[in-house]
């Protein structure tokens, strides 16, 4: 049996992606790296959609449509986030998240 024919293998990959994403989000101090981790989490969700679409759904388009939405959303989000990071860099000469703590106290 081909590995690519079972739902579980997709779930495993998706879980691994989610785990990596969360780990990166929490451990990295670099804002760009954190954004990349965020993308990983989004992609794990997309992967789930597509996989479930393929194995469990009669209508083969619904999950794909959703995924397209997620991709578009991610693009928009990255667009805003990167501009914020850029602005932060201009201001602080650093993209370390620990330097961005003006709201404390």
């Amino acid at each position, binding site marked *: 049996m081909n590995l690519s024919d079972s739902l579980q293998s997709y779930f495993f990959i998706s879980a691994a992606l989610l785990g990596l994403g969360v780990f990166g*989000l929490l451990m990295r101090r670099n804002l760009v790296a954190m954004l990349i981790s965020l993308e990983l989490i989004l992609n794990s969700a997309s992967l789930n959609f597509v996989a479930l679409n393929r194995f469990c759904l009669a209508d083969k388009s619904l999950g794909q449509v959703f995924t397209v939405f997620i991709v578009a959303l991610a693009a928009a989000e990255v667009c805003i986030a990167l501009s914020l990071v850029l602005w932060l860099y201009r201001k602080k000469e650093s993209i370390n998240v620990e330097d*961005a703590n003006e709201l*404390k106290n």
Partner: protein
Amino acid sequence: MDLDLLWTIQLSPLLAFLLITLLPKALKKTAPMVGIGLALAAALASLKLFSLHADGAGMPQEYMRPWFEISRQSLWPFVEIQNYSLSVGFLVDRLNLLMIMVVTTITFFVQLFSFYYMAQDESRGRYFGFLSFFSFAMTGLVLSSNLLQTFLFWELVGLTSYLLIGFWYQKPAAADAARKAFVINRLADLGFYLGILLLFILFGTVDFLKLEQNVLTQTLPASTLTILGLLVFTGVMGKSAQFPFHVWLPDAMEGPTPVSALIHSATMVAAGVFLLARAFGLFASSQTTLLVILIVGSLTAVTGAVLATVQRDIKRILAYSTVSQLGLMVMAVGAGSAVAGMFHLTTHAYFKSLLFLTAGAFIHRFHTNDIFEIACGGGKKELLPLGALLLGLASLCGVFPFAGFFSKDMILEVLRERGVIFYGISILVSFLTVYYSSRLLFVILFSPARETRHGKHHETWVSQISGSVPLVMLGAISVIVGLQGTSVFDFKILRWLGGHETHLNIQILWTTTALIVGGALTAFFLFRDPALAEKRLREDQGILRRVLERKLFIDDVYQFLVKKVVLKLASLLDWFDRAFVNGVLVNRTSYLILGVGRWLSRVQTGFLQDYLTWALTAGLAVLFWTIHLSSGKL
């Protein structure tokens, strides 16, 4: 029909007050007309009501509607549960029909006189508005069917009294007098209110008709009844200026004179005596209460009469005289005869308001309150006021056949039956009454009129009529009303009040005649030459004079009490408020919340990842919780 009349009596003064208050500035001139017209309406309505019930049949009548009910759980847990419900409404019986007639007629005459007296005052509108509002509150008090309703109007009456004493609030003396009256009345009303509350809790009702002596004595123990009676009597002491609360009444003379005539001699201060008669069952159910009432009445009567003998201010003479006469009425009630008290209240209301209006006429004419100055200005040339003064003083002294004779003799008779001490006190008071009345009269009569300093007012015929008609009418009424209690008119007023007929007691007649002659002769001997008497008075520095000048030191005692006790207590409470309420309760609470907040603010580290961790943990917790729940269901 009855109900319509009652509403007319009750609401027309209120309507007058509202109209006068809402009048536009341009129409303020009509305020006296509105007040007088609606007072006339109320007076006519009460006369009509009286004539409808002249035979006294079908009394008492109640027009009640439920006010509120109190559920069983919300009240005292230890007391036997009764049905706590309060009604509000009119109660009409002989007692308050008589009183309402006294109140509305005197109100009308006083309003009419005020038109003359206040003609030059800028704020006439305010004056007539307050006067109408007072009359509304007073009629409400008289027509109330239960103690709580009475209490509400009682307070309103006190408020208008305050407002009218301080009518000329730019004068510091008037403002002080108003405050004094207000504070002393509040103090006394506290007792009254506690009494009503206790009575309501213990007895279950405060309706006048249900406060019957035998029912009360069967339901409640004697000591409780004594306490209840005394608490309610405290309110009476405040309003009716009984010793030691009498100090506000003489000071209240700072108000306009017609106000003194209406509120501080005829109606409001008599409300206390009226209440004594109204809730007589409550007071009569304890002999101790009656004895205390009798003693307080005697103290008041003596104090008032003694202090009236040294005053120079005509209004203050009359004010102390009112205090002493109120004391006599209270004595009569304390001796067990509400009828005698009410009879004297009625006659006193008419002749004392007559006397005050007379004083008002003198003051308006000569711009001074001092009797010696009035006399020098030519007081004896004012024939109408002088005649009215003579009539009023004759009534006050109890000269046969004027009003005071019958009512006062009835009180003397009642007191003679009660005991020799109180009889002696009333004799003394009567003697002093004659003395200070004669003194007032002789000073005005025998002084040579030196100059007429004050030019005559340019008075229109309207204001002349409004200045003289009340004097004539009140004089006539105060003659007639006394005769109502005699065999000439078949003891109408006494029968009406449910009393027995009295016969002319020869012994008392001789006693009073001797008193009148004796008092008048003493006064004549001392004041046949007023100028000399005044000079002698100024030079006299005896101890008696000083004691009387300081008003028996009662004001000083109050001053001492306020300074040493009340202020100390206040500073103690102030400390308690600052240290405990503010320091412990308020500040500690806020410190606690501040501390918790500061501790919780440590969560905010300023690191994005920490927040993310919190958010993810929370999200996971929610997720697990949801899964746990749904699996539990399955």
